[in-house]
Each structure stands twice: as C-alpha cells, then as structure tokens.
C-alpha cells in the first residue's frame, strides 16, 4: 500500500511517497521505504530525487540554519556532495531583505550544470520548517542520520567579525610602534663632549652658623 504525506509552508511544499517497512516492524501508516519525493518551491523549478538526495538536502540545509541562528552563516556541504548551501555575500551593506542564501544542486546526470536557487530569509525559513516537519513526523521513519546541533566554538564565532575589523587593532599597534621607533631614531644622540677642564681646587668654606 503506497503512502503519501505532504508538508507545507507558505512558499514550500514537500511531498514524500513510500511504503511501510514491515520487516522493521513499522505500522501500516509509517513510511519506512522512500519511493519518491518532490519539493515545490515558489518561483523555482520542482526538485525531486532519491533518498540520498533528500538526506543530502537535510544535511546541508539544517546545519546551515543552525549557524544562521547564531548569525554566523557558513557554507555547508562539500564539493563532492550533491547539495551545497552557502551565503551570498553582498557588496552593498544594508539590512534590506534580499536573496542572501544559495542552494546549489548537482545533478547525478553527467554533463548537467548544477542548479542554483537563491532564497531570502523567509523562503529559507519556510524550507527549514518543512524539513523539520519531515524529520519530526513519527509517520516518517527513514532513518536519516543527522549530526546533533552543537554549540559553536569561540573561533567559529570570531569569524562573524569582518577580517578588516579583526586585523585593525594589531595593525594599529604595529603602526604605533613603528612611528614611535622612527621618532625615537630622529632624536639626536648626545655628542661626546670634550673632557671637562680641571675644576678649581675646592676651598674650604666657613661653616654655617645658626643665627642667634
């Protein structure tokens, strides 16, 4: 018996089809074997694929969202992974809403260009919520292995400070040192003075007498 479940958000709809894995003891309502999945994203072509592709999508999008919660967006997914997620850097500084995240999908077909989709924060949040619904739904037990969310280390957070800003204090310190050293070098050294003439012989003075 084929089962089909849908998970929806405003700009995102995920449909998964499958069968219960009776050998694993799943109930009749549980999808344990995935036969197909389809992801509709508003304004983008429909995505579909196999179980591995869905796993790769989860493994790229969810850790990316984890880093976004800490405001440290970081590219996710290696060069050989079918799904990669990365922030789109913008030269225009500002807080306007813009497509700031790029999802890159490598097709398993040879000679096919990777598909790139850009999302703004709201669309990405929709996708993340859709994937959350999928992984938390007790009716879907596909056994995806996802790394647990963990706190970020200090050096991972330091990356949020732009390089120029991070380098400014040590560069300023070195510059100050160089300037001080240069100024110090410009101060003339005291010339060796001629040997002083012999001082006149000391004459004894009358001892001071306190006034009476």
């Amino acid at each position, binding site marked *: 018996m084929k089962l089909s479940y849908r998970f929806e958000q405003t700009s995102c709809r995920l449909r998964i089809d499958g069968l219960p894995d009776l050998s694993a003891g799943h109930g009749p309502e549980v999808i344990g074997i995935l036969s197909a999945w389809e992801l509709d994203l508003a304004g983008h072509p429909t995505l579909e694929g196999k179980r591995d592709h869905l796993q790769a999508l989860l493994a790229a999008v969810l850790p990316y969202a984890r880093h976004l919660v800490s405001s440290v967006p970081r590219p996710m997914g290696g060069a050989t992974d079918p799904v990669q997620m990365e922030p789109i850097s913008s030269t225009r500084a500002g807080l306007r809403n813009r497509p700031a995240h790029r999802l890159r999908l490598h097709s398993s077909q040879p000679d096919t260009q990777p598909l790139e989709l850009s999302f703004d924060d709201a669309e990405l949040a929709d996708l993340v919520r859709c994937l959350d619904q999928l992984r938390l739904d007790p009716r879907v037990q596909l056994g995806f292995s996802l790394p*647990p969310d963990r706190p970020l280390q200090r050096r991972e957070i330091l990356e949020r400070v732009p390089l120029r800003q991070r380098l400014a204090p040590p560069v300023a310190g070195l510059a100050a040192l160089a300037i001080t050293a240069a100024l110090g070098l410009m101060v003339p050294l005291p010339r060796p003075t001629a040997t002083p003439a012999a001082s006149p012989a000391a004459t004894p003075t009358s001892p001071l007498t306190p006034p009476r």
Partner: protein
Amino acid sequence: MADVTITAPNAEAAVEQPPPPRPSARLSRRGLERLDLMLLSVEALDLNGGEAMVWMANQLGFGSLFPNRVELWKRRCYNPLRLACRRGVLSEAETDALISLLCAMADRLYPMLRQLLSASEPEPVTQQRWQLFRTRLDELVRERLNPRRGGVQKLLDHQEGPRLQRQLVQGLAFGSGRGGFDRLKASLMDAAA
C-alpha cells in the same frame, strides 16, 4: 527519523524526555541574556505577549514552573542586562522550559516574522513593519533593561541596533517550532565571542 532529541511540547511527553546528554548543559549569562532579549522581541511583536506566554506555558505543561507572570518574570530576571537583575544560574529544566516556550511563541508569531524577513513584500510596507517593531522593542528595552549596560546601549544605538534586532528576528524565525528547539538551545550555548 533524525537522532536528535527534541523537548516534548506536552506534559506526558515531557516525562519521557531522556536525561540530558551533557552534564554542563546550563546556559551561560550571555545565553540567558539572549534568551530574554528574544522573549522581549516576542513581546514587541505581540502586544499581549506577556499573557500569551503564561497561557502557552500552561499549554506546554510548564504550569508548575511558570504558574503566573511573576514566576516567569523572576526567571527572566537572570538576564544580566535587566534593571532588576538576579544573580545565580537557572537549572537546565528551567532554561529548557523557557526555550520551549520561546520556540512555541515564535511558531505562533511565524507569519509576522516571515513578513519582516521576506524580500517579496513591498519595501515601504516592510520598512513600516520594521519601524513599528523597533519602536516597540526600544520602549520595552528602556522600560526593563539597565541603560548603563553596554549591551543595552548597543541595542538602542541607531547604527548598531537595527542589525542586532534583525539577528533576534532571524534567530526567532529559524528557531521557531518544535524543530527549532535544538538549534536555538545550541545557539544559546555558544562560546562567548
């Protein structure tokens, strides 16, 4: 199914919650600060947020921890930026309850968070929404937080403030719902920068 543990949204499931994986899973002062600021953002988005939080806490099965607004306020006062700041640390059960509450409130307000972050909405309307949110958050910050603290001054600053407020809204949007709990908790436990 992912092998990620999720704090249960209701009372029965809360009993089945496995023991915490790490012994030192308590939030630092910085984490408590950010948690309270996010709850403050929820209040800025929802005018009736204070009451809604108590109601939501009851719905989630935290009625014994936060039976009324005062108990909730006392826990939130562990934020070091508060005017009436309390010393000490909260237990993990209390911070987990606060984070679950925050996730549930963010889930409830998700349509508003989405509107604030969407690029497909008309720009003037988005700006107006942000303006309204900033005004309310600034009012709440002035009313409840200590203006002598650097963190509060940054939040009220015209240059720095909007960026920090956007980070709070982003954090709420990506941490909303039951699935956001682990992300948000891990983020609140980040090392200090």
